[in-house]
Protein backbone atom coordinates (compact mmCIF):
# COMPACT_ATOMS: atom_id res chain seq x y z
CA UNK A 1 0.00 0.00 0.00
CA UNK A 2 1.85 3.02 -1.21
CA UNK A 3 -0.62 5.78 -0.36
CA UNK A 4 -0.94 4.84 3.30
CA UNK A 5 2.36 4.72 5.17
CA UNK A 6 3.02 4.50 8.88
CA UNK A 7 6.13 5.50 10.85
CA UNK A 8 9.54 4.86 9.31
CA UNK A 9 12.41 2.98 10.97
CA UNK A 10 10.31 1.22 13.62
CA UNK A 11 9.90 -2.33 12.31
CA UNK A 12 11.87 -5.12 13.96
CA UNK A 13 12.06 -7.14 10.74
CA UNK A 14 15.40 -8.85 10.08
CA UNK A 15 16.29 -11.05 7.10
CA UNK A 16 19.43 -13.15 7.16
CA UNK A 17 20.44 -13.56 3.50
CA UNK A 18 22.89 -16.33 4.51
CA UNK A 19 20.03 -18.54 5.64
CA UNK A 20 17.66 -17.71 2.75
CA UNK A 21 17.08 -20.68 0.47
CA UNK A 22 15.16 -18.68 -2.16
CA UNK A 23 11.79 -20.42 -1.82
CA UNK A 24 9.88 -17.16 -2.46
CA UNK A 25 7.26 -17.93 0.19
CA UNK A 26 7.87 -14.60 1.97
CA UNK A 27 7.11 -12.68 -1.22
CA UNK A 28 3.89 -14.65 -1.45
CA UNK A 29 2.53 -14.24 2.09
CA UNK A 30 3.54 -10.62 2.77
CA UNK A 31 0.46 -8.39 2.32
CA UNK A 32 2.65 -5.27 2.01
CA UNK A 33 5.10 -6.40 -0.70
CA UNK A 34 8.05 -5.90 1.65
CA UNK A 35 10.12 -8.64 -0.02
CA UNK A 36 11.46 -8.98 -3.51
CA UNK A 37 13.47 -11.74 -5.16
CA UNK A 38 16.87 -10.68 -6.42
CA UNK A 39 18.49 -13.60 -8.13
CA UNK A 40 17.74 -16.60 -5.96
CA UNK A 41 17.60 -14.73 -2.66
CA UNK A 42 14.86 -12.72 -1.00
CA UNK A 43 15.61 -9.08 -0.26
CA UNK A 44 13.83 -6.49 1.85
CA UNK A 45 12.70 -4.05 -0.81
CA UNK A 46 10.35 -1.90 1.29
CA UNK A 47 11.38 -2.11 4.94
CA UNK A 48 9.11 0.71 6.13
CA UNK A 49 5.98 -0.95 4.76
CA UNK A 50 6.42 -3.83 7.24
CA UNK A 51 3.59 -4.02 9.76
CA UNK A 52 5.14 -6.89 11.71
CA UNK A 53 2.27 -9.31 11.08
CA UNK A 54 4.66 -12.25 11.23
CA UNK A 55 3.35 -14.12 8.17
CA UNK A 56 6.85 -14.32 6.64
CA UNK A 57 8.47 -15.54 9.87
CA UNK A 58 5.82 -18.20 10.31
CA UNK A 59 6.31 -19.58 6.82
CA UNK A 60 10.04 -19.21 6.20
CA UNK A 61 11.29 -22.80 6.01
CA UNK A 62 14.88 -21.93 6.90
CA UNK A 63 14.32 -19.52 9.78
CA UNK A 64 15.96 -16.68 7.87
CA UNK A 65 13.43 -14.04 8.93
CA UNK A 66 12.64 -12.68 12.37
CA UNK A 67 10.28 -10.02 13.62
CA UNK A 68 9.95 -9.15 17.26
CA UNK A 69 7.45 -6.47 18.18
CA UNK A 70 8.07 -6.88 21.92
CA UNK A 71 5.36 -7.24 24.53
CA UNK A 72 1.61 -6.93 23.91
Amino acid sequence: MKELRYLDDVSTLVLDPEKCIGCRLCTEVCPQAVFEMRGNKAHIADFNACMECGACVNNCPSGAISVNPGVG
Partner: protein
Amino acid sequence: MEEMSKTAGCGCSEVAASQNKQKISTSGVSIMSSMDEMPSCSATEAESPMAGYEKPGYRLFSFVDKFIDTDAGPVPIIKPKLQVEDLFATFFVRCGIGRYSYTIAPGLYGIGSPDKNSEVLVTANFKLTFDHVRKELSSINAWILVLDTKGINVWCAAGKGTFSTHELVKRIKKSSLEKVVDHKRVIVPQLGATGVSARDVKKQSGFKVVYGPVRAKDIPAFLKNNNTADKTMRLITFSMYERFILTPVEIQMVLKPALMIALVLFIISGFGPGFFSFSGALERGLPAFFALLTGIISGAFVTPVLLPYIPFRHFALKGIISGSIFALLFLLLSASAIQGISGFIALFLFSVSISSYLAMNFTGATPFTSPSGVEKEMKQYIPVQLASLVISFGLWIYSAF
Protein backbone atom coordinates in the same frame (compact mmCIF):
# COMPACT_ATOMS: atom_id res chain seq x y z
CA MET B 1 -5.31 1.77 26.85
CA GLU B 2 -4.83 -1.96 27.08
CA GLU B 3 -7.57 -2.29 24.51
CA MET B 4 -5.34 -0.90 21.82
CA SER B 5 -4.42 -3.98 19.87
CA LYS B 6 -0.78 -4.55 19.27
CA THR B 7 -0.90 -8.03 17.88
CA ALA B 8 -1.48 -7.67 14.20
CA GLY B 9 -2.90 -4.44 12.93
CA CYS B 10 -6.10 -6.06 11.99
CA GLY B 11 -8.71 -4.31 14.00
CA CYS B 12 -9.14 -6.84 16.75
CA SER B 13 -9.21 -4.50 19.69
CA GLU B 14 -10.88 -6.86 22.06
CA VAL B 15 -11.15 -10.52 21.44
CA ALA B 16 -11.01 -12.39 24.71
CA ALA B 17 -14.70 -11.79 25.38
CA SER B 18 -15.65 -14.16 22.63
CA GLN B 19 -13.74 -17.10 23.94
CA ASN B 20 -16.51 -18.43 26.16
CA LYS B 21 -19.36 -18.05 23.73
CA GLN B 22 -18.98 -21.20 21.71
CA LYS B 23 -22.12 -22.82 20.48
CA ILE B 24 -22.67 -26.49 20.81
CA SER B 25 -22.98 -27.50 17.24
CA THR B 26 -22.04 -29.87 14.53
CA SER B 27 -21.30 -29.09 10.93
CA GLY B 28 -24.19 -27.35 9.25
CA VAL B 29 -26.48 -27.69 12.19
CA SER B 30 -26.75 -25.49 15.25
CA ILE B 31 -28.53 -26.22 18.46
CA MET B 32 -31.89 -24.60 18.87
CA SER B 33 -31.60 -21.70 21.21
CA SER B 34 -35.26 -21.27 22.00
CA MET B 35 -38.40 -23.34 21.77
CA ASP B 36 -40.26 -20.58 19.92
CA GLU B 37 -38.06 -20.82 16.88
CA MET B 38 -39.32 -23.29 14.34
CA PRO B 39 -36.82 -25.29 12.32
CA SER B 40 -36.37 -23.69 8.92
CA CYS B 41 -37.37 -27.00 7.41
CA SER B 42 -40.54 -27.69 9.24
CA ALA B 43 -41.60 -31.24 9.89
CA THR B 44 -44.82 -30.80 7.97
CA GLU B 45 -42.92 -30.84 4.67
CA ALA B 46 -42.49 -34.58 4.78
CA GLU B 47 -41.14 -34.72 1.25
CA SER B 48 -38.45 -32.13 1.87
CA PRO B 49 -35.08 -33.49 0.79
CA MET B 50 -33.71 -32.02 4.01
CA ALA B 51 -36.02 -34.03 6.24
CA GLY B 52 -33.56 -36.88 6.55
CA TYR B 53 -30.93 -34.57 7.95
CA GLU B 54 -32.95 -33.12 10.79
CA LYS B 55 -32.00 -33.98 14.32
CA PRO B 56 -34.10 -33.45 17.44
CA GLY B 57 -33.05 -30.28 19.19
CA TYR B 58 -31.08 -28.97 16.21
CA ARG B 59 -31.92 -26.42 13.59
CA LEU B 60 -30.52 -26.16 10.10
CA PHE B 61 -28.65 -23.02 9.17
CA SER B 62 -30.73 -21.16 6.61
CA PHE B 63 -27.76 -20.93 4.24
CA VAL B 64 -27.70 -24.71 3.83
CA ASP B 65 -29.26 -25.67 0.52
CA LYS B 66 -29.02 -29.46 0.70
CA PHE B 67 -26.69 -32.24 1.72
CA ILE B 68 -24.55 -34.42 -0.50
CA ASP B 69 -23.10 -37.76 0.43
CA THR B 70 -19.35 -38.23 0.43
CA ASP B 71 -17.09 -41.03 1.60
CA ALA B 72 -16.79 -39.07 4.83
CA GLY B 73 -20.56 -38.78 5.29
CA PRO B 74 -23.09 -36.11 4.34
CA VAL B 75 -21.72 -32.61 3.74
CA PRO B 76 -23.94 -29.50 3.68
CA ILE B 77 -24.00 -27.57 0.41
CA ILE B 78 -24.42 -23.88 1.02
CA LYS B 79 -26.14 -21.16 -0.98
CA PRO B 80 -23.89 -18.49 -2.45
CA LYS B 81 -26.67 -15.94 -2.36
CA LEU B 82 -27.14 -13.95 0.84
CA GLN B 83 -30.67 -13.71 2.16
CA VAL B 84 -32.38 -10.68 3.65
CA GLU B 85 -31.76 -12.01 7.16
CA ASP B 86 -28.01 -12.25 6.42
CA LEU B 87 -27.97 -8.62 5.31
CA PHE B 88 -29.81 -7.46 8.43
CA ALA B 89 -27.43 -9.43 10.62
CA THR B 90 -24.45 -7.95 8.73
CA PHE B 91 -25.78 -4.47 9.44
CA PHE B 92 -26.08 -5.13 13.16
CA VAL B 93 -22.68 -6.78 13.43
CA ARG B 94 -21.12 -3.84 11.57
CA CYS B 95 -22.61 -1.64 14.28
CA GLY B 96 -20.98 -3.84 16.90
CA ILE B 97 -24.17 -5.55 18.02
CA GLY B 98 -23.66 -9.23 18.81
CA ARG B 99 -20.44 -9.39 16.86
CA TYR B 100 -18.75 -11.75 19.31
CA SER B 101 -21.37 -14.45 19.00
CA TYR B 102 -21.88 -14.24 15.24
CA THR B 103 -20.55 -17.69 14.49
CA ILE B 104 -21.33 -20.72 12.39
CA ALA B 105 -20.43 -24.32 13.13
CA PRO B 106 -16.88 -25.15 12.05
CA GLY B 107 -16.31 -28.09 9.71
CA LEU B 108 -16.62 -29.01 6.06
CA TYR B 109 -19.15 -27.41 3.72
CA GLY B 110 -19.51 -27.44 -0.04
CA ILE B 111 -20.64 -24.92 -2.64
CA GLY B 112 -21.95 -25.65 -6.15
CA SER B 113 -21.41 -29.32 -6.99
CA PRO B 114 -18.01 -30.19 -5.58
CA ASP B 115 -16.39 -33.53 -6.36
CA LYS B 116 -13.19 -35.37 -5.51
CA ASN B 117 -11.09 -33.02 -7.62
CA SER B 118 -12.55 -29.78 -6.27
CA GLU B 119 -10.35 -27.39 -4.35
CA VAL B 120 -10.70 -26.93 -0.59
CA LEU B 121 -11.00 -23.31 0.52
CA VAL B 122 -10.21 -22.63 4.17
CA THR B 123 -11.94 -19.85 6.10
CA ALA B 124 -12.99 -18.70 9.58
CA ASN B 125 -16.25 -19.31 11.43
CA PHE B 126 -17.09 -15.62 11.82
CA LYS B 127 -20.42 -15.47 9.94
CA LEU B 128 -19.48 -12.12 8.39
CA THR B 129 -16.34 -13.72 6.92
CA PHE B 130 -18.24 -16.82 5.82
CA ASP B 131 -20.92 -14.72 4.06
CA HIS B 132 -18.22 -12.63 2.46
CA VAL B 133 -16.61 -15.74 1.01
CA ARG B 134 -19.73 -17.58 -0.17
CA LYS B 135 -21.23 -14.59 -1.96
CA GLU B 136 -18.17 -14.52 -4.23
CA LEU B 137 -18.47 -18.20 -5.14
CA SER B 138 -21.70 -18.35 -7.12
CA SER B 139 -19.95 -19.84 -10.16
CA ILE B 140 -17.58 -22.10 -8.22
CA ASN B 141 -17.65 -25.76 -7.24
CA ALA B 142 -15.51 -26.15 -4.14
CA TRP B 143 -15.26 -27.45 -0.61
CA ILE B 144 -15.12 -24.92 2.19
CA LEU B 145 -13.31 -25.90 5.37
CA VAL B 146 -14.41 -23.63 8.19
CA LEU B 147 -11.98 -23.38 11.11
CA ASP B 148 -13.12 -22.66 14.63
CA THR B 149 -11.77 -19.16 15.18
CA LYS B 150 -14.33 -18.39 17.92
CA GLY B 151 -16.16 -16.01 15.61
CA ILE B 152 -13.13 -13.90 14.71
CA ASN B 153 -12.12 -12.99 11.13
CA VAL B 154 -9.17 -14.72 9.43
CA TRP B 155 -6.46 -12.08 9.93
CA CYS B 156 -7.28 -11.24 13.53
CA ALA B 157 -7.70 -14.90 14.41
CA ALA B 158 -4.34 -15.67 12.76
CA GLY B 159 -2.75 -12.96 14.90
CA LYS B 160 -4.43 -14.27 18.05
CA GLY B 161 -3.60 -17.89 17.35
CA THR B 162 -7.04 -19.40 16.68
CA PHE B 163 -6.62 -19.52 12.89
CA SER B 164 -3.60 -21.72 13.30
CA THR B 165 -1.59 -24.68 12.08
CA HIS B 166 -3.02 -26.69 14.95
CA GLU B 167 -6.66 -25.82 14.19
CA LEU B 168 -6.22 -26.41 10.45
CA VAL B 169 -4.63 -29.81 10.97
CA LYS B 170 -7.30 -30.73 13.50
CA ARG B 171 -10.11 -29.69 11.15
CA ILE B 172 -8.59 -31.57 8.19
CA LYS B 173 -8.50 -34.74 10.28
CA LYS B 174 -11.89 -34.24 11.90
CA SER B 175 -13.62 -33.81 8.54
CA SER B 176 -11.72 -36.78 7.04
CA LEU B 177 -10.71 -34.56 4.17
CA GLU B 178 -8.57 -37.32 2.66
CA LYS B 179 -11.78 -39.28 1.98
CA VAL B 180 -13.56 -36.33 0.44
CA VAL B 181 -10.94 -35.25 -2.08
CA ASP B 182 -8.37 -37.15 -4.14
CA HIS B 183 -5.74 -34.41 -4.04
CA LYS B 184 -3.65 -33.22 -1.10
CA ARG B 185 -3.92 -29.46 -1.01
CA VAL B 186 -5.91 -26.79 0.77
CA ILE B 187 -6.18 -23.12 -0.22
CA VAL B 188 -5.61 -20.89 2.80
CA PRO B 189 -6.37 -17.17 2.57
CA GLN B 190 -3.10 -15.24 2.40
CA LEU B 191 -3.86 -13.29 5.57
CA GLY B 192 -4.11 -16.61 7.41
CA ALA B 193 -0.35 -17.00 6.91
CA THR B 194 0.24 -15.04 10.12
CA GLY B 195 -1.11 -18.02 12.03
CA VAL B 196 -0.32 -20.92 9.71
CA SER B 197 2.97 -22.55 8.87
CA ALA B 198 2.62 -24.25 5.50
CA ARG B 199 5.51 -26.56 6.28
CA ASP B 200 4.08 -27.72 9.61
CA VAL B 201 0.63 -28.32 8.10
CA LYS B 202 2.20 -30.53 5.43
CA LYS B 203 4.21 -32.41 8.02
CA GLN B 204 1.27 -32.96 10.34
CA SER B 205 -1.56 -33.63 7.87
CA GLY B 206 0.00 -34.46 4.52
CA PHE B 207 -1.89 -31.56 2.94
CA LYS B 208 0.00 -28.86 1.09
CA VAL B 209 -0.98 -25.28 1.88
CA VAL B 210 -1.48 -23.05 -1.16
CA TYR B 211 -1.86 -19.40 -0.20
CA GLY B 212 -4.87 -17.89 -1.91
CA PRO B 213 -5.59 -14.20 -2.50
CA VAL B 214 -6.09 -11.64 0.27
CA ARG B 215 -9.66 -10.88 -0.80
CA ALA B 216 -12.45 -13.42 -1.31
CA LYS B 217 -13.60 -11.64 -4.46
CA ASP B 218 -10.37 -12.71 -6.19
CA ILE B 219 -10.93 -16.43 -5.49
CA PRO B 220 -12.64 -17.21 -8.84
CA ALA B 221 -9.81 -15.52 -10.79
CA PHE B 222 -7.22 -17.25 -8.60
CA LEU B 223 -8.75 -20.67 -9.28
CA LYS B 224 -9.09 -19.97 -12.99
CA ASN B 225 -5.45 -18.94 -13.06
CA ASN B 226 -4.24 -22.39 -11.89
CA ASN B 227 -4.11 -21.37 -8.24
CA THR B 228 -1.81 -18.44 -8.79
CA ALA B 229 -2.35 -14.94 -7.50
CA ASP B 230 -1.18 -11.90 -9.39
CA LYS B 231 0.50 -9.07 -7.53
CA THR B 232 -2.62 -7.03 -6.78
CA MET B 233 -4.33 -10.08 -5.26
CA ARG B 234 -1.46 -10.32 -2.77
CA LEU B 235 -1.62 -6.74 -1.51
CA ILE B 236 -3.82 -5.42 1.24
CA THR B 237 -5.94 -2.34 0.51
CA PHE B 238 -7.56 0.16 2.84
CA SER B 239 -9.88 2.20 0.66
CA MET B 240 -12.20 4.92 1.89
CA TYR B 241 -15.10 2.49 1.92
CA GLU B 242 -13.03 -0.10 3.81
CA ARG B 243 -12.19 2.56 6.39
CA PHE B 244 -15.73 3.90 6.57
CA ILE B 245 -17.29 0.49 7.22
CA LEU B 246 -15.14 0.12 10.37
CA THR B 247 -16.25 3.39 11.95
CA PRO B 248 -19.60 2.28 13.45
CA VAL B 249 -17.74 -0.25 15.61
CA GLU B 250 -15.16 2.41 16.55
CA ILE B 251 -17.97 4.65 17.73
CA GLN B 252 -19.88 1.85 19.41
CA MET B 253 -16.81 0.87 21.43
CA VAL B 254 -16.41 4.41 22.69
CA LEU B 255 -20.05 4.88 23.77
CA LYS B 256 -19.71 3.48 27.27
CA PRO B 257 -16.57 5.39 28.29
CA ALA B 258 -18.06 8.49 26.63
CA LEU B 259 -21.11 8.21 28.87
CA MET B 260 -18.88 8.14 31.96
CA ILE B 261 -16.92 11.15 30.73
CA ALA B 262 -20.16 13.01 30.01
CA LEU B 263 -21.23 12.40 33.60
CA VAL B 264 -17.92 13.76 34.88
CA LEU B 265 -18.31 16.78 32.57
CA PHE B 266 -21.71 17.66 33.95
CA ILE B 267 -20.41 17.32 37.52
CA ILE B 268 -17.36 19.54 37.06
CA SER B 269 -19.48 22.00 35.09
CA GLY B 270 -21.52 22.49 38.26
CA PHE B 271 -18.59 23.90 40.22
CA GLY B 272 -18.66 27.67 40.44
CA PRO B 273 -18.81 30.67 42.76
CA GLY B 274 -21.56 29.06 44.87
CA PHE B 275 -19.45 25.85 45.15
CA PHE B 276 -21.93 23.70 43.22
CA SER B 277 -25.11 24.44 41.36
CA PHE B 278 -27.33 22.11 39.38
CA SER B 279 -28.40 24.83 36.99
CA GLY B 280 -24.70 25.55 36.34
CA ALA B 281 -24.07 21.86 35.76
CA LEU B 282 -26.77 21.80 33.12
CA GLU B 283 -26.02 25.15 31.54
CA ARG B 284 -22.25 24.70 31.28
CA GLY B 285 -22.38 20.93 31.00
CA LEU B 286 -24.21 21.07 27.70
CA PRO B 287 -21.49 22.85 25.67
CA ALA B 288 -18.91 20.60 27.34
CA PHE B 289 -20.95 17.58 26.26
CA PHE B 290 -21.06 18.85 22.68
CA ALA B 291 -17.29 19.38 22.80
CA LEU B 292 -17.02 15.69 23.71
CA LEU B 293 -19.24 14.72 20.77
CA THR B 294 -17.11 16.89 18.49
CA GLY B 295 -13.98 15.08 19.63
CA ILE B 296 -15.61 11.67 19.08
CA ILE B 297 -16.85 12.51 15.60
CA SER B 298 -13.47 13.92 14.64
CA GLY B 299 -11.37 11.11 16.12
CA ALA B 300 -13.50 8.03 15.51
CA PHE B 301 -15.19 8.96 12.26
CA VAL B 302 -13.62 11.82 10.29
CA THR B 303 -9.98 10.92 10.89
CA PRO B 304 -10.42 7.23 9.91
CA VAL B 305 -12.42 8.06 6.78
CA LEU B 306 -10.11 10.86 5.59
CA LEU B 307 -6.94 9.12 6.85
CA PRO B 308 -4.59 9.59 3.87
CA TYR B 309 -5.73 13.17 3.27
CA ILE B 310 -4.84 14.43 6.74
CA PRO B 311 -1.16 15.39 7.04
CA PHE B 312 1.40 13.53 9.21
CA ARG B 313 1.90 9.82 9.77
CA HIS B 314 1.26 9.71 13.50
CA PHE B 315 -2.43 9.00 14.00
CA ALA B 316 -2.43 11.09 17.17
CA LEU B 317 -1.23 14.07 15.11
CA LYS B 318 -3.85 13.45 12.44
CA GLY B 319 -6.41 13.47 15.26
CA ILE B 320 -5.04 16.79 16.53
CA ILE B 321 -5.34 18.34 13.06
CA SER B 322 -8.91 17.25 12.38
CA GLY B 323 -9.81 17.79 16.06
CA SER B 324 -8.58 21.40 15.90
CA ILE B 325 -10.63 22.15 12.80
CA PHE B 326 -13.78 20.60 14.22
CA ALA B 327 -13.30 22.14 17.66
CA LEU B 328 -12.92 25.61 16.12
CA LEU B 329 -16.04 25.12 14.02
CA PHE B 330 -17.98 23.93 17.05
CA LEU B 331 -16.75 26.83 19.22
CA LEU B 332 -17.64 29.39 16.56
CA LEU B 333 -21.14 27.96 16.35
CA SER B 334 -21.67 27.91 20.09
CA ALA B 335 -19.75 31.06 21.05
CA SER B 336 -22.74 32.54 22.84
CA ALA B 337 -22.94 29.62 25.29
CA ILE B 338 -19.35 29.81 26.51
CA GLN B 339 -18.00 32.47 28.85
CA GLY B 340 -14.50 33.86 28.58
CA ILE B 341 -11.35 32.94 26.78
CA SER B 342 -10.43 30.29 29.37
CA GLY B 343 -13.70 28.47 28.69
CA PHE B 344 -12.94 28.56 24.98
CA ILE B 345 -9.44 27.18 25.42
CA ALA B 346 -10.72 24.52 27.84
CA LEU B 347 -13.27 23.12 25.39
CA PHE B 348 -10.85 23.41 22.48
CA LEU B 349 -8.17 21.40 24.29
CA PHE B 350 -10.78 18.90 25.46
CA SER B 351 -12.13 18.19 21.96
CA VAL B 352 -8.64 17.94 20.50
CA SER B 353 -7.43 15.52 23.22
CA ILE B 354 -10.41 13.22 22.66
CA SER B 355 -9.96 13.39 18.88
CA SER B 356 -6.23 12.67 19.13
CA TYR B 357 -6.72 9.71 21.46
CA LEU B 358 -9.49 8.12 19.38
CA ALA B 359 -7.54 8.65 16.15
CA MET B 360 -4.59 6.87 17.77
CA ASN B 361 -6.94 4.10 18.86
CA PHE B 362 -7.77 3.52 15.18
CA THR B 363 -4.22 2.21 14.59
CA GLY B 364 -5.57 -1.06 15.98
CA ALA B 365 -8.03 -1.31 13.10
CA THR B 366 -5.74 -0.59 10.17
CA PRO B 367 -3.83 -3.06 8.02
CA PHE B 368 -0.58 -1.09 7.81
CA THR B 369 0.47 -0.04 11.31
CA SER B 370 3.23 -2.02 12.99
CA PRO B 371 2.97 -2.79 16.72
CA SER B 372 6.43 -1.27 17.23
CA GLY B 373 5.28 1.94 15.58
CA VAL B 374 2.08 2.04 17.62
CA GLU B 375 4.03 1.56 20.82
CA LYS B 376 6.37 4.40 19.89
CA GLU B 377 3.46 6.67 19.04
CA MET B 378 1.62 5.85 22.26
CA LYS B 379 4.67 6.57 24.41
CA GLN B 380 5.01 9.92 22.70
CA TYR B 381 1.42 11.07 22.60
CA ILE B 382 -0.42 9.67 25.62
CA PRO B 383 1.43 12.07 27.95
CA VAL B 384 0.54 14.96 25.62
CA GLN B 385 -3.12 13.92 25.47
CA LEU B 386 -3.31 13.48 29.24
CA ALA B 387 -1.65 16.82 29.97
CA SER B 388 -3.97 18.58 27.55
CA LEU B 389 -6.96 16.90 29.19
CA VAL B 390 -5.90 17.92 32.71
CA ILE B 391 -5.28 21.52 31.62
CA SER B 392 -8.67 21.67 29.89
CA PHE B 393 -10.47 20.42 33.03
CA GLY B 394 -8.60 22.94 35.18
CA LEU B 395 -9.40 25.79 32.81
CA TRP B 396 -13.02 24.75 32.57
CA ILE B 397 -13.49 24.90 36.35
CA TYR B 398 -11.51 28.17 36.50
CA SER B 399 -13.66 29.72 33.76
CA ALA B 400 -16.78 29.39 35.93
CA PHE B 401 -15.43 31.85 38.52
